[in-house]
């Protein structure tokens, strides 16, 4: 029997006549939490892998002259901390890596920032289309 080469059926669920327009950019503030230690961060988010040393080692707010090494938790949309924390903990649980250390009050400070954008895409204006 000859080997079949063509697709039997092609169904599209996203594109086509009812295709949605491209996502419109939305400017939303993003925040992250800063911690005095990785352990504090991990206890808060349920997993150490979302906690990194902060390049910017300014001391924590209200802790003038405090620790020089600061850790930061994952970024999340402003007002979405609870959801982001739940999701991080749910994933850690799925992976069997949930940090069960008790939360400690006052271990973090929230800092706001707007992500910088436009750092990719400039070459397309010069080089044009892809292959």
């Amino acid at each position, binding site marked *: 029997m000859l080997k079949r080469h063509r697709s039997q059926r092609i169904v599209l*669920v996203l594109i*086509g006549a009812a295709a949605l327009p*491209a996502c419109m950019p939305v400017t939303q503030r993003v925040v*992250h939490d800063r911690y005095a230690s990785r352990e504090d961060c991990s206890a808060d988010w349920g997993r150490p892998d979302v906690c990194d040393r902060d390049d910017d080692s300014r001391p924590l707010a209200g802790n003038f002259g405090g620790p020089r090494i600061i850790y930061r938790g994952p970024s999340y949309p402003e007002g979405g901390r609870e959801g982001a924390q739940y999701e991080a903990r749910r994933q850690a649980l799925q992976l069997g890596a949930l940090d069960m250390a008790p939360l400690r009050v006052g271990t973090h400070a929230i800092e706001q920032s707007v992500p*910088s954008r436009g750092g*990719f895409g400039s070459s397309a204006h010069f080089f044009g289309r892809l*292959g």
Partner: protein
Amino acid sequence: MRRELLAPREGWQQQMESLGFRYHSIDGVYWDESRCYCFGSEQVDRLESASAELHQRALDAARHVIEKERYREFGIPPDLVPSIERSFAAFEGGDGAGFSLFGRLDLSYDGAGAPKLLEYNADTPTACLEASVAQWHWLQAVRPRADQFNSIHEKLIDAWTRLKSGATSERVHFAAVSEEDSPEDWGNLEYLRDTAIQAGWSTVAVPIDQIGHAGIDFVDQDAQPIECLFKLYPWEWMAREEFGVHLPVSHVQFIEPPWKMLLSNKALLVILWELFPDHPNLLPAYYDPAPLGARYARKPKLAREGANVTLVDGARIERSDGPYDADDCVFQALAPLPRFGDDHVSVGSWIVNGEPAGIGLREDESAITRNTSRFVPHYFT
């Protein structure tokens, strides 16, 4: 292999648009169903086996470059080398972190001799929607009893499904130049996103210039962290742009992965010929034209869409323009594209998840396939 001239279907434009193929007439005529190509099944078998072979040899070449640390020939920024090595090790170990979705081998094939590799678009191949969906629908309407070398669609869904089985993330972000700036790239992106959705992924599309960086890693237009990013945007462009400094320390899983930088660079052609001289599907290629005498193609290592290619055939010289003229080049023996009437045709052979998946044909009056070359459907019996 023969060309047949046909009357285009009435209303084909609307039919293509209903499939998301809205750029069918970009640059005048792009989708061209006033002709098609017919292959014999043994010719399709030959294309399929040559494509599988070439992909494996390309992996051998990548392995060699990594083992011998020949990154300088590829112009790879040193700080991206660890990402290349890590991702290739993951790929070799079957870890999803090295996952590669697809690539397109561009071949010179006349239906009689062995297909010859012209280049491997292994990082950001386009014309996927055309090859997978548009020509399949054309086949259903015009040659319903014939076969087509095209199972790209189901292989894409299979590939995404396989990636999902071992993934820790549930969401893939898809990034390309915006639809406004490049309808072709965005159309391809939306199609690939469609196949990921059908494999059960949650997806988000983001124009590449809307990607943000928030301290530790990349975020999307809604400030949501990006964990897995399919980017239809070249690695070498990303590396040299403002956010390129964040790539070496990023936690994001990129698709295509960093190791594909070794396959999408035309220095690969030199390495392949060095490792596999006289391979029937390869052409002699060097960093210097001298061994090729007066017949060769000069190609910038990182050029795309046939830009800045020069074909030298004795005193006869054909040249394409483009923005890559200052780049380092490779020199490859000529393998002229077959001519049908006034047109030259090249074969783009798709590799999906490591396997040959189908072909798309491009036609042009020029001997150099360019971004303006027409896409022509095919069938086989």
